[in-house]
């Protein structure tokens, strides 16, 4: 009952945020619907194509690989939701101070995370079913796939929830012990779906057991809630006064430089920088592992295109969850502290410049995400250079997208860490995807015919992406000046 009260409050809050956003931007709903249908159609067609075309054995899209991808994505989403909705939420203290068992609080929060995300998955399944029937798309999935997918998503969300609490504990040793205890959950999913490659019918009971174990693990982390909350809210003594001058772009104004320094320091101390870098390292390792899955250089119809396209897909995913997300939360993530910048005599454009420059420090790491794959697969130097330059282009473009939408319509929702709701976020990522394809595909096509011209075009595309970022920052300024608090 008490868990339900916690859950009901969360749902009411989420619903009101979404409703007020829809009132402000009524066209966002049909826009989201269009994007959802379009992208699901694209995914289903890709799965169908991958099942029939001459794709290397290691890269075949199987029901198991889809289930494992769903588990991993849900794990990340569950961890992020648990972190922002619970572990780092300032209002958690009001729940912790009530005569309520911690397990009820954890259960209520887990309920929220599962309900909101499974609701989205259900919507996607409904639309996908309509598309499968309407367009007669053939995908290699039987009747057991849907319950298996739901179990995989539930398991991923609950595992992510538990991992978020464990990773937020007070000391590195306790974090390591907590994460070590929970590592069995993703490992079990990997063994069942990737190593053993159980048929879906056999994987279903395994996934149900995994989902139940994950839910129990998430509830079992409830005694650690207070410690995790305190660790995330506590001060660390001896804060270093690093000099940031070498990192600071010379073209920033004094006020912009002050904003830049503040962004870099707070992102570092909130571990956001480490988290972003860890994400990019994870993507780089995942890309390199694709090559090991292939077992050697690809052959067949798509051999030349395959690995560079996979590399760019990885770079896009990395850019979306680092550059775009940070740009989107740049203003909304300030929450109640935005009064500081808004009552200082600083134009919004300087605020946007300082913040964008701080986010851009991640660009070199992002541009290098595709390099391990390029080195492992033995790409020629010019192809490797193309991957790096295109990675830079994607990073700039995705930062521009994040800065633009983050300033135009900032979200002050603490439950999402200053990010817009899932519907809007999805739409923005899709816009970013289209922009990246427009920036990266023409130079890539040119490169296939003439390498020098292709490289020059890629450099020009990077310039244009930088120009897009410049324009986004310029346009963000007036929006920031107009934010009412």
């Amino acid at each position: 009952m008490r868990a339900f009260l916690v859950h009901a409050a969360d749902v009411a809050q989420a619903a009101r945020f979404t409703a007020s956003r829809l009132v402000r931007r009524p066209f966002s709903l049909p826009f989201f619907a269009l994007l959802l249908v379009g992208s699901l159609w694209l995914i289903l067609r890709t799965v169908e194509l991958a099942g029939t075309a001459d794709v290397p054995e290691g890269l075949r899209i199987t029901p198991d690989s889809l289930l494992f991808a769903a588990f991993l994505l849900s794990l990340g989403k569950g961890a992020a939701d648990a972190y922002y909705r619970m572990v780092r939420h300032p209002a958690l203290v009001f729940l912790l101070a009530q005569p309520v068992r911690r397990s009820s609080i954890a259960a209520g929060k887990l309920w929220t995370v599962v309900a909101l995300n499974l609701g989205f998955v259900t919507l996607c399944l409904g639309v996908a079913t309509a598309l499968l029937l309407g367009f007669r798309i053939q995908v290699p999935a039987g009747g057991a796939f849907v319950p298996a997918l739901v179990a995989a998503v539930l398991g991923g969300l609950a595992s992510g929830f538990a991992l978020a609490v464990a990773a937020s504990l007070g000391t590195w040793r306790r974090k390591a012990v907590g994460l070590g205890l929970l590592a069995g959950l993703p490992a079990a999913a990997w063994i069942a779906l990737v190593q053993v490659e159980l048929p879906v019918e056999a994987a279903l009971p395994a996934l149900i057991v995994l989902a139940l174990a994950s839910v129990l693990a998430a509830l079992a982390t409830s005694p650690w809630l207070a410690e995790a909350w305190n660790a995330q809210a506590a001060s660390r003594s001896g804060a270093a006064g690093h000099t940031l001058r070498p990192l600071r772009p010379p073209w920033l104004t004094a006020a912009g430089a002050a904003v830049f320094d503040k962004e870099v320091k707070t992102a570092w101390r909130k571990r956001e920088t480490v988290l972003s870098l860890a994400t990019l390292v994870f993507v780089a390792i995942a890309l390199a592992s694709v090559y090991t899955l292939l077992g050697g250089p690809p052959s067949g119809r798509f051999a030349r295109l395959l690995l560079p396209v996979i590399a760019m897909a990885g770079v896009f995913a990395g850019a979306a969850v680092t550059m775009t997300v940070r740009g989107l939360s740049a203003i909304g993530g300030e929450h109640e502290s935005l009064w500081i910048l808004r009552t200082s005599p600083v134009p919004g454009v300087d605020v946007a410049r300082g913040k964008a420059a701080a986010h851009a420090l991640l660009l070199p790491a992002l541009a290098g995400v595709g390099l391990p794959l390029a080195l492992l697969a033995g790409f020629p130097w010019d192809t490797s250079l193309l991957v790096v330059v295109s990675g830079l282009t994607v990073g700039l473009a995705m930062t521009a997208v994040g800065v633009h939408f983050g300033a135009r319509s900032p979200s002050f929702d603490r439950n999402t860490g200053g990010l817009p709701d899932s519907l809007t976020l999805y739409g923005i990522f899709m816009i970013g995807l289209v922009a990246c394809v427009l920036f990266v595909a023409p130079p890539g096509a040119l490169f296939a015919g003439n390498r020098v011209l292709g490289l020059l075009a890629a450099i020009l595309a990077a310039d244009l992406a930088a120009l897009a970022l410049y324009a986004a920052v310029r346009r963000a300024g007036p929006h920031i000046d107009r934010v009412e608090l």
Partner: protein
Amino acid sequence: MLSARGVTKRYGPLLALDAIDLDVRPGEVFGLLGSNGAGKTTLMKIFATLLRPDAGSAAVRGLDVLGDPLGVRRLIGFVPETPALYDKLTGREFLHMIARLRGMPDAQAARGIQELSDLLRMEEELDRETDGLSRGMKQKVALASAMFHRPPVLILDEPTNGLDPRFARLLKGWLRAYAAAGNTVLLSTHVTQVAEAICDRIAVVHGGRVAALGTPEDVSHRAGTENLEDAFSVIVEAA
């Protein structure tokens, strides 16, 4: 110094300010007194350029808050009712950032911060990240951020919130002296004793309107009461 003419502000169907007219003079401490939700914070936020009026105009030293918001911000120091700070910056880093945002030279900023740190007795706490500070200490850091650049206009929303009685008393004396030097202090409070102790004039705000205006003694006298606390009740009930 501060003027509002017909300032109106709505939050959807709620009328927060209803055509308010107000003038705050140089050299005075002016108090906005009102119940919760009376419109005090909304009016202060309009003067601080955080909100735009739906109708009417507001100006600080002749600068319109809509026409020249940056100019207005150069003139003011502002502390909100619940000042959320950058929790992963130390107090000193936070104040230095404010100084740089205001284009103050480093040496001048360091001097100003040191002076206020001595005055507010928070030397040790200034080097701790602000999320580890007590509420009162956070309030002190926020007050310091509004004052150390010595703006001619201070806009303070419930400035004594969270402060211990000894420091609240110190602050009142300091604000009186600050206004006496020719600056303007606009503060809001719902504690009538605070208004009586430091305000030269007050406005009782109720339902988005100015229900009474004058010195605390005048307001009490006109309400036919002995003190401001009783006067406040009479005025609010009559409005």
